[in-house]
Every structure is written in structure tokens, then in C-alpha cells.
């Protein structure tokens, strides 16, 4: 039970939770108009991408 394994497991679970929630938030924001909503949607989308990258990192697909 190395520290690295604990970290990866937590990261994986966290990424699924956070990414999933963010995806729901993004879906709810989609119909909203206004510059702040549009910018928030783009940034949320990129953040979900970040969660995907973290999942790939936790699964040893990417990264060292």
C-alpha cells in the first residue's frame, strides 16, 4: 500500500466524482445566455478535460 497507490486511487475516485458533477453542471448551464455563462461553460468543459487527464494519469495511461 504505497503512498503512490493511495494517491492514485483517491485521484481516480475524486476525478470521477468531480468530473461527473461538473458535467451535470455544464449540462444545466447549456441553455443559459450571457457572456459570463458562455465563458463558464468553456472553462467547465476544459476542467472536465482536466479530470479526464487525471483519470488517465491515475491509470498509468499517461505520465511517468
Amino acid at each position, binding site marked *: 500500500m504505497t503512498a503512490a497507490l493511495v494517491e492514485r486511487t483517491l*485521484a481516480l475516485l475524486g476525478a470521477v466524482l468531480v468530473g461527473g*458533477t461538473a458535467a451535470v*453542471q455544464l449540462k444545466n448551464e447549456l441553455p443559459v445566455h450571457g457572456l459570463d455563462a458562455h*465563458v463558464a461553460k468553456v472553462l*467547465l468543459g476544459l*476542467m472536465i478535460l*482536466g479530470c479526464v487527464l*487525471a483519470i*488517465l494519469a491515475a491509470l498509468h495511461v499517461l505520465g511517468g
Partner: protein
Amino acid sequence: MAVSALNATHEAVDARYNDVDPVYAQTRDIRLTGFVLALGADCVLFSSFIFAYLYLRTSAPAWPPFVDGHQLPRLDTSFAALNSIVLFGSGVTMHYALENWKHLKKAAFNGWLIATIVLGALFLLGQAHEYLSAAMTWQGSSFGASFFTLTGMHGFHVFIGVIYLITLFIQANRGVYTGSKYFGLTAGTLYWHFVDVIWVFLFFLFYLW
């Protein structure tokens, strides 16, 4: 003299605010657009240093580079992945905070905002740990130079963000914002998401590539 021609200069402002106060709507629109442009300018700052990192990395004979005859180790992805989730989580909590404010649920707003601040502070602690356990130094190589400068700039932005969020917490609880006029909270949320997204790029560039 057609009114449509007269209105040609009035850019479409956010229709959510038309009922509130048309003067406020237009002022808010100007401030919001200005704020987004300022975030764009901040992007240029990070982009310039990312360019420097890309240049130095692609022109290096080996990566990680050699220092004193030994090749530097790659960065620890596991810890960084966890720390990234902490930061991304704070983005989600911030979104919930703003949503609750819009629906005038002050207690929930407070809770989510505090969660955001705590997670942001945890991220900074994580970065401090990362810095203390790094094998390379700021001065020793182009790896250290680009890593510590870029993540340092990012960390500074997170730090300013945490201060900003604390200020918003105080302001909101002093009654500065109403259910329909809360531009500071909107700006704070956008800034926090922006800081999140910069980290997505840095995480990929330094840990995953």
C-alpha cells in the same frame, strides 16, 4: 430616422438583467466584458512562458535534462493528480456557491464558498509539498527554471484567488450583494475557473507529457 439604426450600437446585453435595471445591465455588461478581456490578457502571460518551456524542452538533447552528469527524474504524477482533483473540486464547489447565491440560499452559499477556499488552500499546501520534494532546483536546469516559474506564477494566481474569495465571503455576508446584483461573485467564479483551467494545461505539460 429608424430606431433600428439608432439601436445598432447597443450590443445585446444579458437579457437576464433587463428587468433589474437597464442602467445596471449595461454597466455590468461593460465590467464583465472588461474582466473577460483581462483574463484573456492573463492567458497571454501564461502562454508566453509556456512557449518558453516548449522551446527549451524541444531544443534540449534529453528530457528531463542532465545535471551534474545525472538525469533528473520525472515528476511524481500520482501526487499531482490528486492535487489536481483538489483544485478541480474547488471549481465545482465554487459553481455550487454561485448557484446557491442566485437562488438566495445564503447558508448553502457560505458553505460551498468556504469549501472552495479550503480546497484552494489545500492545493497550495500540496504545491508546497511538491516544491520541497522536487529533485531539481530553480537555478539548476531549464527544467527547474520552467517548472518553478510557471507553477509559481500559477500558485501566485491561486493565492490571490484565495484572498479574493475570502474578501467575497466577507462582502457577501455584509450585504454588499443582492439576489440580482452580485457582479463580484460572478467575476470571482470566472477567475477561479480560469485558474483551474491554467492548471489543466500545466498538469498536462509538466506531468503527463
